[in-house]
């Protein structure tokens, strides 16, 4: 189906931005190609790897499968926007655990972890697994992700 370009105004990382694109454009590609926010990554395009995770009104969503036309005035936060005044505690916990290997999946992992901790300040192992099982890490950093989340929850960092 050929969709003509349209103008959209989005609220991204507390800033209003305007872009022109086809309405079915996934947020992921608008962020990366048009807004220069390349911290959000492409891994699968079908909402099963978690690399592209961002927040929409505080909830973790997969931006590869979220069309621009569905966002309206909801607040989008990307990895570039989470640590407004320096590093976010979850980012600090990631550094303290030396979590990343190649690092490619980690923006998505951190965005999922922040959303989890905002809803549940003291997650159990099962809660962590449930919230994080949508995020693949091919390098296999899962053990450290789990402990970084626990440390962030108990303010150990």
């Amino acid at each position, binding site marked *: 189906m050929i969709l003509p370009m349209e103008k959209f105004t989005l609220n991204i990382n507390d800033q209003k931005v305007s872009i022109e694109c086809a309405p079915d*454009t996934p947020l992921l590609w608008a962020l990366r190609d048009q807004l220069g926010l390349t911290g959000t990554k492409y891994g699968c395009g079908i909402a099963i790897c978690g690399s592209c995770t961002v927040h929409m009104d505080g909830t973790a969503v997969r931006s590869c499968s979220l069309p621009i036309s569905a966002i309206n005035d909801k607040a989008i936060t*990307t990895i570039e926007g989470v640590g407004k005044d320096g590093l976010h505690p979850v980012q600090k916990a990631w550094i303290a655990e030396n979590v990343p*290997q190649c690092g*490619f999946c980690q923006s998505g992992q951190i965005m999922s972890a922040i959303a989890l901790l905002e809803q549940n300040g003291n997650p159990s192992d099962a809660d962590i697994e449930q919230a994080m099982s*949508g995020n693949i*890490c091919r*390098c296999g950093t*899962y053990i450290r992700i789990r402990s970084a989340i626990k440390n962030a929850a108990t303010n150990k960092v």
Partner: protein
Amino acid sequence: MKPNPSNNKLFKVSRRDFVKIGALGSTGLILGIPLGCKQDKNAFLTGREDAVFAPNVYITILGTGEVQLIAHRSEMGTGIRTSLPLVMADEMEADWTKVKIIQAIGDVKYGDQNTDGSYSVRMFYQPLRVAGATVKLMLMQAAAQEWQVDISECKAVNHEIVHNSGKSLGYGYLAEKAGALPIPSENEITLKDSRDFKFISKETVIYDLEDIVTGKAVYGLDVQIPDLKVAVIKRNPEAGAGMKSFNSDMATAIEGVSKVYKMEPTAFPMGYNAPLGGIVVVANNTWTAIKARNAVEVVWDKGINASYDSNAFMQQMQRSVQKEGQIKRQLGSATKALKEATKVIESDFLVPHLAHSPMETPCAVARHNADGTCEIWAPVQSPQWVRQAVAAALGIEESQVTINVTLLGSAFGRKSKPDFVVEAALISKEMNTPIKLLWTREDDIQHDFYHSNCAQHIKVGIDKNNKVTSWVHRTAFPSISGTASAEAKGPSSDELCMGVLDMPFEIENVSCESLDAIAQIRIGWLRSVHNINHGFAIGSIVDQVAQAREMDPIDNMLDLLGSDRKIDFTALVEGFNNYNVKLEDYPCDTHRFKQVVQLVKEKSEWGKSLPKGKGMGFAAHRSFLTYVACVVEVEVDDNNNIKIPMVHFAIDCGVPVNPDRIRAQFEGGAAFGASLALKSEINVKNGAVTEDNFNNYLVARMTDAPINTAVHFVENEEKPTGVGEPPVPPFIPALCNAIFMATGKRITRLPIRL
């Protein structure tokens, strides 16, 4: 380690030369470090046999005190970009916070840059230490001159030279003076005692850590240059096959599509450089390109592999290993000993094709310039190989091609093949504009260089004294070389040295055999390569042997490894390949092998009693010159769900340069092994791969991967060896053996289906 300066010759670099190699020019001390090295395990595939003895790494101290180190290896998650510079920094007593790492472009002047084969630390450890120590000495000499004192009254402490009297001068201040001094001869240089290491064997976080967690780190697809257009390619499901016709009307009607055209496919076996080709779609942005690709209609043609069916192929290989193959290693008479045996343990083992599926799919930015030169930005493991391939494809000189290496969003061997970069370069030339080529996940999984599928048969004879007297190991798999040559009919001897011909057991009658199998799809090396298949088979049969001998599996292993000795494989195997290094330099030492086995036994509480549904399994394997023993604890519930609460690795990788990153490699290696053991499988029907994304090519998630992994080091001062690949081979059979203990089911085929 005994201080033993190597034969490498450092040299001073003039400022002009240095500017030429691309670093920021400044006054100060600049040294080039030649790291002559033999080629890697893939040299036979790429024709890069000539060892290059050229300066590889540059170390600069600026007037500001900043130390710049040029890192010539690609970072794909192993921490190598950090580990090598910190070896230099340790010897030169640098302040790590003042060290800046610059990624080298792909150029022969850096020597071999292929980051592969778990060998970067192994090759460069010693020369980099010598370089660091040389710089330190020159700075000390400069300070002694300035103060008019004897050098013995000076020492280097955290980026300063300090005199006995307490006065000190910073490295930045001394840099220019030190740069004017002659380079000290090697016998003046003393390396640090290992007890005094500040970074080596200590925990140092990776250099790019903060950029990664803030989303600033730049991977291949993140590169932005002006006027960039995005390309994707619609490919024939059968790699190498052509097309009859295509219709692009619907695609070109989409706003933002620049061009849709045909890139001629290269027929199979096309090698590693050739573009797969297909219908190229170029657009203003990624989404438009992807949508337009979906709108292109193509009538594909069939190629020579149109009937390839991986299932039928596996059955054929399995039948073939029931009979004697080409004998590649023989001792005594296994046939006779088997006849005389009181017990014979035998089993087939099957491993499917696997895909690399690095988290970041293959991608590249190419800019073909009006003057005929070409510049590339891409996540590549082997920038020089890419440079050659791009130059050849464009018909220009290598000197006209610049390869900028970005961070790699993991690789596992996929990104050492240049094909995707060549595609980007060709499209940029055709379009006369800078191009970012994206391989979607579907492209990646359907058009990989797959891990060789493999069938094996192992037969072990035990005599009346409960002694193992014969060992027959047969393996059949398509060779990696089959991707480049129709002449490659089956396993090469180099490939058989990964787990078949280097069998370490002290058994009197041995026959190691291979059977032909012809590649009918692109085959490539995947993390741990053929050790995946062979480690799985050997680790599993050895557990069956222990059971038959009514022995504890670890005692059985120690018994099989036999007496303390350095095994002379060169006498046992014609053309033995010890991961491309001399066997006498890196022997297979059964004493060291047994040490890791004993260490894992001790640390894992081996033999503790476990409730129903739980099991512990053991396996050990030497690959890439590193010894690894592994114990896996498993929990299998009534629905056959498998959980891995604990993994213990005991390893001997020589001096552990960056222990935290080594641990990370083992944690990750276990998770990678969990993917292969529990989840992943590529199937091919009618020449086309049936899986196409992570919904059917399954990989380990947090719920599947081990919950804890402990890594125990054998402490020694041996030369460092690789750690990227060695975790995977023993993990898989240890898991299978644990499942046997928990459920009584023997696993002989991957992925595990209970």
